C-alpha cells in the first residue's frame, strides 16, 4: 500500500512539475506559436501523469478504469487540438516572431 501511494505521489508531483514548466513558458515566451509549443506538450504530459497518479492511488475499480480511459484520451486529443489551433492561426494570418522583434 505504501509503495502504491509513493508511486502515485511521484506521478502527481512530476505532473505538477510539467504543468509548472508549461506555465513558465506561457508567461515568458514572446509569440503565439512558441507559447502553444510550450503549453501543448507540457499540458499533455502533465495532465496525463496527474490522472494516471489518481488511477494508481484508487486501485483497481470502476473509477480507475474511467481515469485510465480519460488519460489515454488526453494522450491522443491534446496534441491534435494543439495542431488544429496552430494551423488555424497560421491560415488566419498570425505573424511569426523573429529574433529582434517585439513581444506580441
Amino acid at each position, binding site marked *: 500500500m505504501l509503495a502504491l501511494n509513493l508511486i502515485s505521489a511521484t506521478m502527481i508531483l512530476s505532473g505538477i512539475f510539467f504543468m509548472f514548466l508549461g506555465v513558465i513558458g506561457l508567461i515568458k515566451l514572446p509569440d503565439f506559436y512558441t507559447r502553444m509549443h510550450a503549453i501543448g506538450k507540457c499540458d499533455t504530459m502533465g495532465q496525463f501523469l496527474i490522472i494516471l497518479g489518481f488511477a494508481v492511488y484508487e486501485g483497481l*475499480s470502476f473509477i480507475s478504469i474511467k481515469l485510465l480511459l480519460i488519460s489515454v484520451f488526453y494522450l491522443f*486529443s491534446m496534441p*491534435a487540438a494543439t*495542431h*488544429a489551433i496552430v494551423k488555424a492561426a497560421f491560415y488566419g494570418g498570425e505573424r511569426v516572431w523573429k529574433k529582434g522583434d517585439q513581444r506580441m
Partner: protein
Amino acid sequence: MNVKRDIIVDTTSKKMMPIILAFGLYTMIGSKGAGGGFQGGCIIAAAFILHSLIFGFIEGRKKIPESWNTFFKSFGLHLYCGCGLLSIIASNFVAEFLNYSAFWPIANLVGTHEARAMQVELIIEVGIGITVFAAFVSMFYDLAWKDDDELEDEVIK
C-alpha cells in the same frame, strides 16, 4: 478562404468519435463510481459537436437531423416518467410515483434495494442521458446555424 483539409485533425476525429461514444455510454450506465446520466449525455453530445466542428455544420446536421433531435428529447423524458408510472402499475397502485423499490417482478426476485439500483442504473440514467444529449446538440446547432441566404455566400466545406 480556400484551405486544404488537414489529415491529422481528420484522422484523429474519425478514430476518436466511436471511442468517445462508447465511453459516454459506459459513463452513463455504470453508476458505480463517478458519472451518471447527465455526464454521459454530455460526452455523447460532445462527440457529435466534434464531428460537426471538423466536417462542417451541414454534414453534421445530416448525421442527426432536427426531427431526430426532437424525438430523442421527448423520448428520454417519457422513459423517465414511464418508469415511475410502471412502478405504480406493477405494484397494484400501492407505491407512490417514482418509488422504484416497489418494482414488482424484479423486487420479488432479487430484493428491493437491488431492484431500485437496477432501475435507476438502466432506465432512469439512460433516460436522463438521452434527453441531455439531444438538448445539448440542439442548443449547439441553434447557436451555430446560419440562415440559408448566409450559407450561399460562404461555402462551408
